[in-house]
């Protein structure tokens, strides 16, 4: 479980996050949604420790991340897997070497065991026969899947997924969403997904946090989201005619 308590972050004079508190449950896909520029990605980077917040704390199963020393932070980070919006695969490494990278850096396995683990992870995300290719030689959807394989290689407790569907077609987006759902259950991870893709919200969101103007505006389940009367949330979720029709249809069952 990851807890965020009274988190605030500003850049210069711009207050990006104000007093955010939230709980992200274990074994679930916790979604952070909001408009572009609302502070979702900054919140994600504060949670993983890439940004240091001015106020507040982040607790990883009770461990306050920002109070840990350098070595303890490094240990917590080895329990984290992250899929970036751009996939962030290493250009100079092949698909297989990308997945092997965290294993070679930290795992205490033999080379053969590492190979087995990397192949298993690639098989789990349905990437087979592409091991020797470089990231630039595979499609965006495949890059995301390799990113997921790399993120789960160290058997993480926490998975962060930043805009997993950006730049993907709807069909591939569903494949990625389903994969994240399945892996979260399989590895019993605390997954935090940053998204503004409404299909993802409807498909994968177990616990949804809506960020508006840097504040935790609303938190609840998918069903509660459909029933919510929160004006800002409704304006964001049901901005399109299609989503309004979906809402009506889901309400009618």
């Amino acid at each position, binding site marked *: 479980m990851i807890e965020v308590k009274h988190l605030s972050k500003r850049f210069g004079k711009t207050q990006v996050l104000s007093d955010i508190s939230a709980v992200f449950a274990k074994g679930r896909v916790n979604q952070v949604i909001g408009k572009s520029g609302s502070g979702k990605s900054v919140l994600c*980077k504060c949670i993983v420790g890439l940004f240091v917040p001015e106020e507040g704390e982040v607790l990883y199963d009770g461990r306050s991340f920002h109070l840990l020393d350098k070595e303890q932070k490094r240990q917590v980070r080895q329990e984290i897997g992250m899929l970036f919006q751009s996939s962030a695969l290493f250009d100079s490494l092949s698909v297989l070497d990308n997945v092997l990278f965290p294993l070679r850096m930290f795992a205490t396995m033999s080379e053969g065991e590492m190979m087995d683990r990397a192949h298993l992870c690639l098989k789990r995300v349905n990437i087979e026969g592409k091991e020797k290719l470089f990231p630039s030689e595979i499609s965006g959807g495949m890059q995301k899947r390799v990113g997921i394989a790399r993120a789960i290689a160290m058997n993480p407790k926490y998975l962060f997924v930043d805009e997993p569907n950006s730049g993907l077609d709807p069909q591939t987006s569903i494949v990625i969403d389903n994969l994240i759902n399945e892996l979260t259950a399989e590895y019993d991870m605390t997954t935090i997904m940053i998204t503004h893709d409404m299909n993802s919200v409807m498909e994968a969101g177990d616990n949804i946090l809506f960020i508006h103007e840097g504040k935790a505006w609303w938190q609840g389940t998918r069903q509660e989201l459909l029933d919510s009367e929160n004006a800002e949330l409704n304006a964001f979720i049901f901005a399109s005619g299609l989503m309004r029709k979906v809402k009506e249809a889901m309400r009618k069952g």
Partner: protein
Amino acid sequence: MNLLFHTGHYFQLLGEVFSKPERFSLYWKRTVEEIDLLGVKSLGIVALLSVFMGAVITIQTKTNIDSPLIQSWVVGFAARQSTILEFSPTIISLILAGKVGSNIAAEIGSMRVKEQIDALDIMGVNSAGYLILPKVVAAILIFPFLVVISMFLSIFGGWMAGSLTGIVSSDDYIMGIQSGFVPWHVTYALIKTVVFAIIITTVSAYQGYYTSGGTREVGISSTKAVVYSDVVILIMNYLLTQLLLI
């Protein structure tokens, strides 16, 4: 204030770079790759420049000291001294700052804007150490070899120019390059080279590591890497010369 900020930030980064590696074997593998990339692949340009610079030094020296009072072998002596003391360690390092420095800043800067450095940090990898230390070690190991090769080729280029044009006879040139040789001058040149290797790799890596924005900023970092490396090399060249030669 800006200079102070960057100086402090630079030394903070160096603290990260020289901290204990997570896996020596991985770092060593990267060091060997960097030796090839930074050193072996620079051999061509270093060789070309050295031969022609040696030739030009010889011709210019001869035309400038064309006096019956100065013996012909002095041309060889002057060519050797210019090459060992200044041309090979300093000018070649300035050239390498352009070739290698811009490459380092662009590579690390691209990794920064593509979130690959964030990915390393999140995995718990010391990204500064992993990306920069192998480059620094590789440059320290390979640049002295490049400079020694440059010294030989430059002196050889001088001999060729002198012999082919007939302005200095082969015997006079060889006598000149053997006269008054001070071995310490080679040591001094190699000390300078090691210092310049550290400057080129760390200053360029600093520019790349703290790139923010997009491809335009990567280009700016790359340019800054060359300019700042050159400036620091020139300042250190003066200081080291005063410290080691006087």
